[in-house]
């Protein structure tokens, strides 16, 4: 199964969950239950927005290649010293590296002021990423700017 199919399956699952939730909303008369159902809808919407963005990234990267591979999409090479300049300070963009790929987090909401849960941009954060976000489709939302040398 390629990335496109995985995204499509996840989107279908989300839509089917949303349909169930809407059905339940029609029959529920308890305010607390309604509240929980509305929260669930909002979570599905947030998932959908993330998945659609991932799908777009995947589609734009896979033109002519069939699969999304950030390595084919960006040839700029970074050394650790190069990366350190992109720390988000003094007007510089904020880049981070994960598993050899360098991502732009300058305008990523979770990286306000180029910091994220005590981590700073301009570094290789592979181990930190793995310990917190393993298995989550987080990276697909980020713009790839290059590779680690």
């Amino acid at each position, binding site marked *: 199964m390629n990335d496109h199919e995985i995204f499509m399956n996840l989107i279908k699952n989300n839509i089917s969950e949303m349909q169930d939730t809407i059905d339940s909303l029609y029959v529920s008369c308890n305010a607390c239950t309604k509240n929980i159902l509305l929260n669930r809808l909002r979570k599905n919407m947030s998932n959908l927005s993330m998945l659609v963005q991932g799908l777009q990234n995947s589609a734009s990267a896979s033109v002519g290649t069939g699969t999304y591979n950030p390595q084919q999409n960006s040839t700029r090479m970074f050394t650790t010293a190069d990366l350190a300049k992109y720390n988000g300070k003094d007007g510089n963009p904020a880049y981070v590296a994960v598993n050899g790929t360098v991502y732009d987090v300058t305008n990523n909401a*979770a990286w306000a002021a180029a910091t994220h849960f005590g981590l700073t941009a301009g570094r290789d954060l592979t181990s930190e990423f793995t310990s917190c976000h393993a298995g989550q489709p987080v990276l697909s939302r980020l713009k790839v700017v290059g590779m680690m040398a």
Partner: protein
Amino acid sequence: MNEPNLNCTNSKMRLETASVLVHKAINAIGQNKIKKGNLIWLELTGCSGNIISLLDGADPNFKNLATQMVNFIYDNSLMAAEGESAMEKLFGVIGNDFILAVEGAVSTKNDGLYNIIGRWRGQAVTAFDAIKMLGEKASYVVAVGTCASDGGISAARPNPAACVGTQNLLGRKVIKLPGCPCHPDWFLGTLAYILMFGEPALDDRNRPIMFYSTLIHDMCPRRPYFDQGIFASQLGEETCMFKLGCRGPVTRVDCPIRKWNNRVNWPIGDNSPCIGCAMFGFPDRMEPFISYDTTRKE
């Protein structure tokens, strides 16, 4: 721009959650459908900000809690009893059904010697002892505020008293209500739910999803500025404070709707970035709270 849209069903219902639950619980108690709960509130290693915040509650308020919902057996700041007789009340609850609310972290260094909460039968009782003795026996344990939930400010670097959150010391589920302080609605709504239905639906960090399901960023009245890339470059500008280091995009709680001090205002509504006080890792992992030499504008 700073007002949440209360024509939105979701916002309106969320705002009313605590009030609806508390009044349902009070009615059910009045009709003898359910019993009043016994409540113990322990103030451990913290600033007592959560009990002060609770006193500031408005619809539901503290009077609803103390007179109609629970037998409020122990809280060292509010009770009339003192010394040994107060401790008798505290430990006298063992053997009965009770709900334990904890605020403040637990100091663990030197067997908890850095926080002694009273003397009982001639012996000093540490916060560590109290949480061990009462935490395992309570029908529910609710960590009120960030320190009790995850260590919070009490456990911030360099953490000289080796403070930890309540969950670290108990081999049972602790319902967490992080926030510095905890909003009165979050506690009263959760307590009312427990009295009527038992444990509320929790997320993967044991926070009730009725209050902690969405990011501040999701409901922020300044979100349109973020989406359009219009960012404040200094405090006082009424646009998105992302570039100044706002933690709204990683903080999961409903402040934008509920607001504080009888729903008057909240940090972002007063041009101050969210500092992520309701998120694990606060304060160390939410710093810096404000940044000026930051990324380019795009």
